């Protein structure tokens, strides 16, 4: 994932809010700060397209986008 997309993703997540999200086949509920850490730690495994999907979800979380469709990582 490009650094620019990672930065946009980071900005789209409120570090103090709790988000529920299914990532890498595992549904988790955790602080935005932890989701940011998660995406920073696996950034090299994520494609730009996956990064953009994450931005879409974390910008306006809703049930439809709750599951990351491409969980190949």
């Amino acid at each position, binding site marked *: 994932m490009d*650094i620019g997309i990672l*930065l946009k993703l980071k900005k789209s997540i409120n570090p103090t809010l709790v988000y529920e999200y299914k*990532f*890498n086949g*595992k549904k*988790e509920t*955790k*602080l935005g*700060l*932890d*989701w*940011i*850490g*998660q995406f*920073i*730690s*696996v950034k*090299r*495994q994520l494609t730009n397209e996956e990064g953009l999907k994450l931005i879409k979800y974390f910008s306006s979380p809703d049930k439809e986008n709750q599951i990351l469709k491409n969980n190949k*990582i």
Partner: protein
Amino acid sequence: MAECTPCGTEFPSEYLSLLNCKNQLNTRQAGVAQLAFIKCDQNVTSLTSASEWDTIRGTAGALIRTPNGLGSFGKPNTTDAQIGCKERVITEKTLTLTFKTYKYDNETFTDADFMCQLNDSFNAYRLIWLGCDGNLYFTNAYTSGTNPGFAMDLLTSWDDNPENGLMSKNFEITIDIIETCYSIIKPSAALIAAIFQGQANTSGGSGL
């Protein structure tokens, strides 16, 4: 003269534009606050999942932490070789991390065994650390489902026992970083607690 051909497909992403206008916010507190040793057979799917660390911590011998202390590291030691008339290459790059804690178990004195067992078994463990800046440091080779720690080339620990004053437990750890760097994330308080503070499973005693 060396060729102007980048070796990798990526170029360094500069962070100049990401700096804060308040310069105080651009500095980083130095120092290593605490070490954690993860058994080499432990893999982490989500580095920031406190529950996953709870599970690892609950497995005997899977996660070993030092008490809080203070550590540091500096310029890595490198060895290079001349491979052409005006061309050199780094062949070895190691980082030496030193750490010291003044905290001892003065009830049951398990700190003596801890040191002895760690000296014997360090090569079965991978190292991560908590910085004094509150950040978590791990290998940049980490990907989901792998061990986020650094393999250690050498670990030695000893007690400094001066004529007077306090005893201190010291660790000197050498890490081969020729092919890896460290990555950093800012962990939440819950994550720090899960990795560095929660009760670990010590059943089996010499599980190290």
